[in-house]
């Protein structure tokens, strides 16, 4: 039987990798997740036949079934109910649960160890503790990320000498970890203190990070959870966990790097300095010109008689759930012969690809959706660039002003379009608190209001023509 279990685990690991690969193309993506789903179900089912699962009595087995039932039910309900716009924080929370589970595995084994059981010793013990540390940090950190994105916790919180506190906490946690990793016997109390410190560390590291940086942090925690799962796989001698965990760890790291690069913010900056703290200075500089308002009906005319319109969606579109209205507007414009393209900044919204998901939800063909590099040369040939609730990702100072905190960040050149219409809720500045020179430009007109309402007005404007 154990040979059979190994074969299923092996097959599951292979299918996970193939599934991830299939997710690399929009056409095969859906089948990729379905494949991986079957592999997961198979791996879970055969685990019931593992001697370490059924061999210790009926009560343990009952607990396992009940726990799987409870966890699955809660997760299924929440994942089905959540709005697409809230997906990022849900990914954060499911990821945190995985990290917590990895930490829990280590906790059970360490408690067993403190009770005199042999759990392997040496390298295995060290990796188990390392996985526990990473998993616990990912768990509590993801919970904070969730709270921030969900709006339960709006402010970035910095304690006095936060950084020093973090370093001290880190050192203490590692110290406890070292005791657990290298001792021949440990007390349950040390295990408890270790986990307490690790959980606190996750909270402390995540608290000062601003909402705009959250996607990168969630991606990082995702990679970390993968690593933690791989390490606990060593502890349990489970190849499927090692391979799947490591694959997620490395791919997640790459994804995190891509995101950090798109924001032109080294990962160390995101983790160790808060964005808001140094941006106040740049906001005070003088800006030539003023913001000029436009009526929705005039904006509609501009767009309806254009040859090419490039739409730049941002977080404001997500908040207002305006993607469906937008799809309607695009349809109307295309019926009039206007070429409509979408320009997606890598970090628009709260996750890379967040905008794509929303646009796909509204049924907008992904052939119309372009990356930053593809679309930037096209802005000068567009009559209208329509910016919907995006701010920092279209701020030209990132190209022009070396003193700006976002200088060097790749931005969409919406200012180079012949006309630029910006839909915006109010006159305030963006997430980063930096004034946007695009809004003051000669060829820019502001259309104030909630994105959904504003696009609705544009639609009726176009219809009246």
């Amino acid at each position, binding site marked *: 039987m154990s040979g059979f279990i190994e074969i299923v685990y092996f097959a599951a690991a292979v299918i996970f*990798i193939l*599934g*991830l690969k299939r997710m690399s*193309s*929009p056409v095969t*993506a859906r089948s*990729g*997740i379905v494949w*991986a*789903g079957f592999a*997961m179900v198979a791996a879970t089912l055969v*685990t019931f036949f*593992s001697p370490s699962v059924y*061999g210790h009595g009926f009560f*343990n087995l009952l*607990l396992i079934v009940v*726990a*799987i*039932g*409870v*966890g*699955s039910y*809660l997760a299924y309900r*929440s994942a089905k109910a959540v709005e*697409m716009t809230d*997906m990022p924080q849900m*990914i954060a*929370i*499911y*990821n945190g*649960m*995985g990290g*917590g*589970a990895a930490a*829990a595995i280590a906790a*059970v084994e360490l408690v067993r160890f403190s009770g005199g059981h042999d759990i392997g010793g040496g*390298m295995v013990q060290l990796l188990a503790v390392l996985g526990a540390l990473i998993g616990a940090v990912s768990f509590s950190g993801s919970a904070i990320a969730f709270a921030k994105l969900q709006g339960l916790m709006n402010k970035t919180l910095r304690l006095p000498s936060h950084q020093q506190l973090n370093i001290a906490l880190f050192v203490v946690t590692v110290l406890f970890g070292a005791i657990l990793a290298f001792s021949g016997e440990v007390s349950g109390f040390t295990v408890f203190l270790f986990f307490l410190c690790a959980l606190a560390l996750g909270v402390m590291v995540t608290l000062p990070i601003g909402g705009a940086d959250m996607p990168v942090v969630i991606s990082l925690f*995702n990679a970390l959870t*993968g690593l933690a*799962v791989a390490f*606990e796989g060593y502890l349990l*001698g*489970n*190849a499927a966990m*090692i391979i799947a*965990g*490591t*694959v997620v760890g*490395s*791919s997640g790291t790459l*994804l995190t790097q891509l*995101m950090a690069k798109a924001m032109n913010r080294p990962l160390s900056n995101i983790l160790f300095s808060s964005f808001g703290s140094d941006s106040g200075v740049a906001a005070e500089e003088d800006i030539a010109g003023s913001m000029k308002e436009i009526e929705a009906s005039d904006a509609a005319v501009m767009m309806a008689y254009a040859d090419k319109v490039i739409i730049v969606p941002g977080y404001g579109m997500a908040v207002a759930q305006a993607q469906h209205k937008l799809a309607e507007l695009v349809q109307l414009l295309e019926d009039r012969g206007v070429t409509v393209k979408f320009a*997606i900044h890598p970090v628009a919204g709260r*996750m890379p*690809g967040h905008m*794509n*998901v929303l646009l*796909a939800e509204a049924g907008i*063909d*992904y052939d119309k959706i372009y990356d930053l590099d593809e679309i930037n040369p096209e802005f000068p040939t567009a009559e209208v660039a329509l910016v919907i609730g995006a701010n920092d990702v279209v701020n030209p100072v990132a190209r022009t002003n070396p003193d700006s905190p976002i200088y060097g960040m790749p931005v969409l050149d919406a200012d180079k379009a012949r006309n630029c219409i910006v839909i915006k809720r109010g006159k305030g500045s963006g997430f980063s608190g930096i004034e946007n020179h695009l809004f003051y430009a000669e060829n820019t007109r502001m259309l104030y209001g909630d994105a959904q309402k504003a696009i609705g007005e544009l639609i009726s404007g176009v219809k009246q023509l």
Partner: protein
Amino acid sequence: MIEGFAALYIFMLAAFTGYEVISRVPVILHTPLMSGSNFIHGIVLVGAMVALGHAETGLEMLIGFLGVILAAGNAVGGYVATERMLEMFDKSSRGGA
């Protein structure tokens, strides 16, 4: 059981695999992909089941129980979220010209 250098080799090869597989993913699939890889580390459920399975004291059982709940949540939540997102891409490919 996997031991010593064999484990190291697995680790290295899996790390390169993950890197290579992801490097060909277009930006539009980044969020579903993050969600998908989030689902895949839900395999931690298998480990949590083993941990709870051989738990003996009440404390071990309690921690193990929580572990399995969390792991099941990771796997199921990750799957449903990813599936819902990718389903939309499916629709748009059919709806497109």
